[in-house]
């Protein structure tokens, strides 16, 4: 039955054709066996524990690193070889296409990975390793998380005509960051402490890591399916991205939350920063041309609100969420003022949300020009000048008030003044967008 389910997916089957040959089927266990035997013979006194550690190392190399390379290439290669249109023209549904690619492109890596996991299991039992099952599952979920996240990332950025993306470069940057993050999390959770406090509950570190990896692996697979749906022109309503922001907010608030804080105050602040980060990521990785916004305008004019939501970019959803979290953070401010010694910048939630709105408007201003080739690069340059260079020069020149006008995220004039200045920024940026729209309407 499992065999039938797997071979009935043409995308999975195609990947198996490409990944497996008799030679490779024999080579993987033979080479792994040779390496593991050499390790076992190297130190006969610690054979079993060495095998356990080596199996983990081989798994990380074969599934996490090599598998990530293959998962990263699965979309990039289709685009490069011009076979992506054929796939988009097929009658395969988004889910079949997603799991066909996720487990098909990495099938050979999982073949080697399963051998490593079997060695881990037997040596773990023989060595009486108390955490062998937790480790085994954590490694597996981390592999799935990495592969699914790379597929989602490449699909999400496939519409951008950047060489870095077309060559899979953005995936490699993500792989490096992901491996550094995984290493830090493993070191932080397992090596340095036995337990984690999450929403005031003491959870054993390895169990917490396993749970976290399971949660994020599920989120990554879901994300890959959602982005695949859009790539296959199966339109979806934009609830998943803000829902993921909410999940992250609850997850991280649970880590930072302590008995002395109110959960809502923490949730408001953590949620705001997560919504800001997620908005900036999508703002600069989604196409924001005037064409996209014209589609929305036409759907709004015809009252096609479902179509309007289906074509809405992701970043406005987390922008809206950022304002909701800013409201929550502001309402819980009175409690926080009495207890916290956090830097001033954190006391201005609405100013931060408005800054995101201003920056989005600046990007749209450049994107709505048909002549601008690199609107995202120009927007980033402008933001660096507005947020860093100009305030710095003003301070050097002793013009503190002018510096505050450029960067009003300072509590010395109060939250209301910060809000007023940031509202002025937003008004100017939105005015520029309106001017650009009027000037460069499509024929």
């Amino acid at each position, binding site marked *: 039955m499992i065999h039938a389910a797997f071979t009935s997916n*043409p995308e999975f089957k195609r990947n198996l054709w*490409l990944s497996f040959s008799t030679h490779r089927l024999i080579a993987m266990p033979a080479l792994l066996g040779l390496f593991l035997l050499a390790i076992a013979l190297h130190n006969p006194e610690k054979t079993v524990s060495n095998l356990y550690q080596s199996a983990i190392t081989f798994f990380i190399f074969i599934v996490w690193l090599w598998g990530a390379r293959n998962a990263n290439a699965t979309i990039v290669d289709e685009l490069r070889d011009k076979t992506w249109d054929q796939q988009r023209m097929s009658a395969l549904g988004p889910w079949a296409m997603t799991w066909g690619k996720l487990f098909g492109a990495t099938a050979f890596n999982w073949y080697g990975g399963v051998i490593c996991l079997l060695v881990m299991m037997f040596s773990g039992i023989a060595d009486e390793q108390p955490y062998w099952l937790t480790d085994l599952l954590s490694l597996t979920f981390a592999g799935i998380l990495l592969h699914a996240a790379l597929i989602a990332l490449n699909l999400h950025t496939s519409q951008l005509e950047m060489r870095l993306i077309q060559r899979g470069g953005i995936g490699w940057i993500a792989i490096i960051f992901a491996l550094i993050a995984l290493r830090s999390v493993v070191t932080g959770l397992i090596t340095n402490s036995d337990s984690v406090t999450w929403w005031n509950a003491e959870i054993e570190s390895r169990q917490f890591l396993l749970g976290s990896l399971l949660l994020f692996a599920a989120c990554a697979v879901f994300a890959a399916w959602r982005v695949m749906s859009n790539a296959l*022109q199966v339109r979806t309503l934009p609830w998943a991205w803000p829902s993921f922001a909410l999940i992250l907010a609850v997850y991280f608030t649970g880590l930072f939350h302590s008995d002395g804080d109110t959960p809502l105050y923490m949730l408001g602040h953590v949620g705001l920063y997560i919504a800001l980060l997620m908005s900036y990521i999508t703002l600069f990785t989604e196409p924001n041309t005037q064409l996209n916004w014209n589609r929305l305008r036409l759907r709004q004019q015809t009252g096609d609100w479902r179509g309007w939501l289906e074509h809405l970019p992701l970043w406005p959803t987390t922008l809206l969420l950022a304002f909701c979290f800013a409201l929550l953070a502001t309402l819980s401010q009175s409690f926080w003022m009495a207890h916290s010694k956090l830097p001033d910048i954190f006391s201005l939630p609405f100013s931060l949300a408005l800054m995101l709105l201003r920056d989005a408007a600046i990007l749209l201003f450049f994107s709505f020009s048909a002549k601008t080739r690199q609107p995202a690069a120009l927007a980033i340059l402008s933001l660096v000048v507005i947020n860093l260079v100009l305030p710095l020069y003003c301070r050097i020149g002793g013009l503190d008030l002018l510096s505050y006008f450029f960067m009003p995220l300072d509590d010395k004039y109060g939250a209301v003044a910060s809000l007023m200045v940031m509202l002025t920024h937003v008004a100017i940026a939105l005015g520029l967008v309106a001017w650009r729209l009027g000037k460069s309407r499509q024929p």
Partner: protein
Amino acid sequence: MIEISNLTFDYPGQRALDNVSLTVAEGSVTALVGPNGAGKTTLMRCIAGLETPLSGSIEVAGMNVIEQPREVHRIMGYLSDFFGLYQELTVAQCLEYAAASQGLPAGRIAEAIQQTAAQLDLTGRLQQASGSLSRGLRQRVAVGQAIIHQPKVLLLDEPASGLDPEARAHLATLFRELQARGMTLLVSSHILAELDEYSTHLLALRNGRVLESRALSAPATLDGHRSLHISLAAPDARLADWLKQQAKIISKNVSADFADIDFQGDLAAQAALLSNLIKSGFAVASFAEHKENLQQSYLRSVAQHLEKTA
């Protein structure tokens, strides 16, 4: 079979399709012609559900392409101008993947592969890696992938580019066979002579607008316009002046021994014209309707369009 209404598609700073409305008849072979940048590929990609238009609607066999793209794909085949093949797969594997991914039942796939390979003269190459094939053979495999599931509608963007004359003739025969089986084909090409061999309809695009859309067997205009070719047995210097004096005639190309003219009138008027020529002492050797080929038809459409917009 294909109904398009008010389709508009924009690229940054440029309108690729401007309020395009058209109908493609079931069982027809429509030649999609136009200069580079006319919007041919964009139109095909919109029909295929690969691009989302700014506005307008596209229906294929009664299904809305924008709302039900996956359902439409089951009855549609598309060969892109810049197609790709899985280089490491054999021809048989490429065809099997295409058949299965288009929803063909597992039990029918083997038969479909053999049938398609036979149609495209690929039977002897089924076990060859597609990456090792010549450009022409690769093109045939790509066509095979597009037709293996016996789609009702087949969209072909420059299907014959890179093919040798023999392969082109083979392809023309194949398209005629597919049409005979009831398939609707929309074919774009720059080589109009090639389209002439199998097209039943003409769809001309220019600057994202429909210049002309009609059946090729139907008269080009409703007022009885026809092209006539007159040749004389011996040169006669009076011919050009004589033709100028006749009503309902526009001379296009006249010399002392032949004339190509646009004539507006019914068959009785045409008979009267022949009679007058003979009565006037011209040694008429031949007097025949000259059927417009696709290239002439297209160029005339362009000339009329330019005249109107001038």
